[in-house]
Every structure is written in C-alpha cells, then in structure tokens.
C-alpha cells in the first residue's frame, strides 16, 4: 500500500513541478508578495504630512512647533498664512494634519489659561485619522508635562502609565507579518490543490485512476502530500524572511508553530481538495477557490479584529481555518505561547481538516458528471 501511495505522490509532484511555468507561479509570487506586503501592511504612520498655520509669534508656539518638527513620524509640507489655505490643502490630500495655533496661544499659556490648539485631521481614512490624532495627542501631552515641570506647577492628580505587553513599541508590522504567513500559505495550498482533481477530470486521467485498484483514501493521501510539502517549505521560507529580514521576534516554541502549521495545512488542503472534488471543470475550481479564499481572508481577523464583528459574522468565522491559524501564529511569534494555550485553536482546525477530507474522498468516487 505504501508503495502505491509513494508512486501517487511522485506523480502529483511531477505533474505540479515538471512545468517550469508552474514552478515559477508556485515559488516566485509568494516570496515577492511577502516582501511587498510586509512593508505595505502596517497601521503605523510614517512621515505624516502636516501643515502649520501659526498666527502667534510667541516663544511657546515656536517650542510646540519644534516638538512637531522633531517628531520622526511627522513631515512638514507647508506653512500657511491664511485660514482659506487650509481647505484646499486637506482636500487635495497634500496634508493629513493641519496644526493651527491661534494668535493668543502664548499669551493664554503664560496667563495660566488653557490655550486651545486646533488640529484638523483628514478623516477620509478613519483609521489613519485616529492614529494621527493619537500621535498629535502624545506630542501635546509631552509638551504639557514639560511646561508643568518647568514651572513647577501642580499637575493632574493622576497620571497614566502605559505599558504594552509582547510588542512594547506597538509596531503593527509585528502583528501583520505573522498574518501574512497564514494568508500566503492559504493562497499557495489553494493554487496547489483546488485545481488538481478538476484538471484530472478534464483530461480524463481521473477515470484512469478510478479504474486502478487504488482506493479513495490512497488517492486522497497522494493528493494531500504535495500541498503539505509545498506548504511546509513555503511557510518555513516565509518564517525565515519574517524573522531574519523583518526582525519580527519569534518567542514561542518551534514545535508549537509546526504543529499549528500542520493542522492548518490539513484543513486548507482539505478545503482545497473538497472544492476540487466538487468541480467538474477547472473554471469552477478556480471560482470555488476564490469564493472560499476571499471571505476566509476577510473573516480571519487579519486586518480587522474578529471581536469587532457582529455576533452572526463571528459565528461564521468559526468555520474559517485561517482564523485559528492566525491566532496560533501571533501567539507563538509574539507571546511565546506553547501548546497549552493553543489547544483551543488546534482542535477546530483538525476537525475542519478531517471533515473536508472525508467529504472530498467520498466525492472522488461518487461525484459523477
């Protein structure tokens, strides 16, 4: 029996990789995409373009503006001289933030009155606006602390002392790059599995297989292995790039990572083969892959937290294997989680894998066309 399966596996690999075009498609784009997406996927703002409309000639205003100028995440694009200049600049998206200092700013401060500082933020991308607002707030807070300390005045009775676990600088790239590993692994297993059965059906070789004494479970195993092996190799390569190139810390246990990967591959290979077994043509397989992949990515919590979704959508995410794998990845990478914390993520993936694979194997022989 093992010899027959070995022959099947060999055949599957040859069918996938003998064509140089397929080799390029399977290996090139995922690595390139990791690099590009790794840089693109971040909520941290760099060089926020801001403009200054300063009506005050006082020293306090100059100090505050110096604090903005010294902040690495801000980049001044313009000095304005009239209120009317603000709107065109923001409308045209040339400035995300406009700092408007009124004419009595220094005078108010020195008099001990609260000095209003108007900051206009482009809210078209609400998330960017929120982040930019937080950046501005932290500059102003630091300025206030300095002002109070320098004048030895009474500060607020309580201060916030913020500390972030696992990701002290709150770099969102650390959050997204493990997610990209999961997403690209899903795409690659889909490319490998979703079309295999459909392609054999179209070319007639599937009939040829069915008339051999091979059993459906042997055929299933033969079709699973390439997805597994390619997924493993790919994920390992991406893991290396993530840790060595992007310097995302890897604190957890490598065995826990690989157990999670294996279970995720089990479930995504299962989903891919199920789509493939359901499809009579490659076109259907392709559309099926798309219909599965797009919601799987969106509902996985990759960019938008699952907790923010309404209850019925949260229920829907329970059948999304990527959802569990992303949790595993982030916990292993950043939180240093071991097996004990991950069991709740492991068993649903195993369940999805077993159900889809059993269905796919049954369909091999029972899907007629």
């Amino acid at each position, binding site marked *: 029996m093992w010899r027959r399966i070995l022959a099947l596996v060999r055949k599957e690999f040859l069918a996938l990789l003998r064509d140089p075009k397929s080799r390029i*498609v399977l290996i090139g784009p995922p690595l390139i*995409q990791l690099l*590009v*997406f790794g*840089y*693109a*996927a*971040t909520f941290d*703002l*760099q060089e926020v*373009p801001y403009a200054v409309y300063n009506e005050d000639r006082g020293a306090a205003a100059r100090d*505050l503006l110096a604090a903005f100028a010294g902040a690495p995440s801000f980049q001044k694009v313009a000095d304005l001289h009239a209120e009317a200049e603000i709107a065109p600049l*923001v409308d045209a*998206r040339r400035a*995300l933030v406009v700092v408007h200092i009124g004419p009595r700013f220094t005078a108010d*401060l020195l008099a001990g009155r609260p000095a*209003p500082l108007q900051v206009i*933020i482009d*809210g*078209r*991308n*609400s*998330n960017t606006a*929120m*982040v930019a*607002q937080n950046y*501005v707030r932290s500059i*102003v807070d630091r300025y206030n602390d300095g002002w*109070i300390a320098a004048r030895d*005045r*009474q500060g*607020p*009775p*309580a*201060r*916030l002392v*913020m*500390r*972030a*676990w*696992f990701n002290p600088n*709150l*770099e969102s790239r*650390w*959050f997204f790059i493990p997610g990209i590993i999961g997403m690209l692994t899903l*795409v690659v297993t889909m490319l490998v599995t979703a*079309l295999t059965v459909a392609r054999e059906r179209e070319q007639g070789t599937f009939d040829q297989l069915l008339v051999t004494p091979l059993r459906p479970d042997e055929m299933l195993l033969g079709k699973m292995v390439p997805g597994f092996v390619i997924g493993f190799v790919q994920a390992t390569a991406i893991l290396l790039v993530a840790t060595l190139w992007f310097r995302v810390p890897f604190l957890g246990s490598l065995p826990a990572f690989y157990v999670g990967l294996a279970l995720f591959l089990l479930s995504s290979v299962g989903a891919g083969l199920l789509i493939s077994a359901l499809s009579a043509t*490659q*076109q259907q397989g*392709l*559309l099926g*892959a*798309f219909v599965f992949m*797009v*919601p799987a990515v*969106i509902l996985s919590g990759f960019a938008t*937290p699952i907790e923010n*979704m309404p209850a019925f*959508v949260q229920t829907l995410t329970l059948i999304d294997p990527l959802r569990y794998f992303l949790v595993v990845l982030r916990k292993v990478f950043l939180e240093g989680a071991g097996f004990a*914390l991950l069991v709740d993520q492991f068993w649903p993936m195993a369940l999805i894998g077993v159900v889809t694979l059993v269905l796919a194997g049954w369909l091999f022989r029972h899907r007629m066309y």
Partner: protein
Amino acid sequence: MSPARGGAAMRLSGLLRKEFLQIVRDPSGIAIAFLMPIFLLVLFGYGVSLDADHVPVALVADAPSQDSADFLAALQGSHYFVPRVAGSLPEAEQALREGAVKGIIHLSADFSRRLRQADGAPIQVLVNGVDANTARLVEGYVTGAWGAWLAAQSARRGQKLDMPVDLQPRIWFNSELKSRNYLVPGLVAIIMTLIGALLTALVMAREWERGTMEALMVTPASMSEVLLGKLGAYFILGTGGMLLTVGLAVWLFGVPLRGSFWLLWGCASLFLLAALGMGLTISTLARSQFVAGQIAIIATFLPAFLLSGFIFDIGSMPAVVQAITHLIVARYFVAIVQTLFLAGNVWSVILPNAAALALMAAIFLGITWRKSRKRLD
C-alpha cells in the same frame, strides 16, 4: 455586397448579444458580478470594522476605595469598554494572556494616598500589544476616559484643572471616525477590480480553448469588433455591479455621498475600462484558462486588498513599495471614491487620479489590441 458601415453595426450588435447570452447562461459569471458584491459588501458593511467597541478590560484595584470606584464608574460610562473587576493582578494578567481581556487598568494600593500628593498617582495601563492597532485604540480610549474622570474630579472639588495646551482635534469628512464610512467606498473599488479582472480573465482564454476563436476569425468581423463586443458587454455588467454597490453603500449603510454622482459614474467607467483591460490582457497573453486563472488570483485580490490604500495608508509605505502601488489600478480609484464619498468634488484629487486611470486603461487595452491579431501564429 461589400461589408458597409451598417455591416459593422450589425456585427457589433451580434457580438454584444452573444456575450450577453453567454453571461446569462453561465451562473458563475452572474454570481461574480452580483452575488459576490452583495456578499462582500454585507460582510464589510456589517461585519468588519476597525472600531473597537465594548472592549473587555480588567480593572485591578489593590486597595478598593471610593477613588477607585469613581474611576471604574468613569470607565463604565464609556461605551468603548466593558470593564470587569479582577481580584488580583495575576488573575488579570492570566485573563490578558488568554485573550479574555484586551487591557488591564491597575490602581496600586497607595492610589488614594498619592492622588492627594504633589506628583499625583500613577494609573498603570497594560495592553496586549500583539494587535498593535487595537492596543493603540484601547490606549486612546483609556486616555479619553481618564480625561473625563479628571475633569469630573476637579469640578467636584471646585478646582480648575491645569491643562496648559488644550488639544481640540477636528476630524474633517468623517467626524465620528466611523471606519465603515471609509471601508465601504474602498470596497466599491475592490469589488469592481474583482468583477473586471476575474470575469474577463477567462473569457478570451475560453474562446481559445473551446476553438470558437478560430471560427470567429474567419468571419468578416475584425479583431477590434470582437474585443469591443466583449468590452461592451462586461462594461455594462460592471456598471450594473457598480450601481448596485454604490446604491447599497448609500442606502443600506448610510455612507454619505458628498460629491457628484455623475462624476462618480464617470470615474467608475474609466476604472472599469482599466480593470477590464487588465483582465483581457491576462486572458490574451495566457490563452489558457488555467494559467489565466492563476495569474488572476495572484494579481488581483491580495494586491488590491493590501496595496491600494483601501486599508493600509500608502503614504506610510517605504518608497519602493509606494512605487509598486502605482501599478495597482485600484489605488487610483480608491483615492477617487474615498474623496467623492466623504469630501466632495475635489478636482485636485480627482483629475490626476482619473488621468492615471485613463492611462492605465489605454495601456492595457492597447496591449490587448496589439496582441490579438487575426492570426493563429
């Protein structure tokens, strides 16, 4: 007898009718054009949001007092939080590790005492930094709650809170910072990319694979007419999908459309031409459905999702990656729809992006036209 101008019109209408009949007969095409947009829009509109609401946080007061109870009340007053009181710090930390809470607010035993001292009392805030964005939101919300609490405290004591610079942020275009208001318009662009490229990525390849291209070629119809027929049919289908998504965005999700609808229509048409052109280019160059499909998967969804400015801010990407985003058709349209929906007819945004769309459309259609000659070799 020679094919006159009337002949060209007849041929074109024949080709258009053929494409429409094929679209109607193939349920998968209809599904991509109409069901997929509705599905995605509902998912995004209702399901996906970057705004953290009702964030579970744990409050640990080492020595409960009236002050700590006041602070808890302030947190409870914000709809951003669902605070729960934890007995001890280790217990709260365990909950944070398990993901049961997103943050811990820790008031040490000497909180009440230090509150009345000169340097003030520290309020320790611990967040799970794995999801940096949510963590930052939680920090922002805590800061807000803290500010409100301080103000209430000072008011009660009749003191004036000493706040040298009073930050007064004003968010333009989306004052409540609803992420739906920017995700939904961006989604219009993503959906149209999928419709445009995925539908047409297979159509030319299908004609080649089924051998019908050969039969079309020996009729008097020119290649431009064949392409025009396909472009026309899918253009109309795509316009239908666009109107559907825009309609849903405005009426179902209440996203304001501040710019001109006709301007939106015009820009969407340019974008459709570019997206359809991209699909036709893939299809023409690949000539096999398998390869065309693989390229379509790799070249459409993830790049449009991640590199268009739909979720991630392009300005914050490194220069090289920013340069790459200029190749993504969706990025220009995302800029246009976000502006048209939320800001209005801002010509300084629309004109350059529309020009870029027109250029991309011209390039893709030009490649397709050049590569589809009436020759088999």
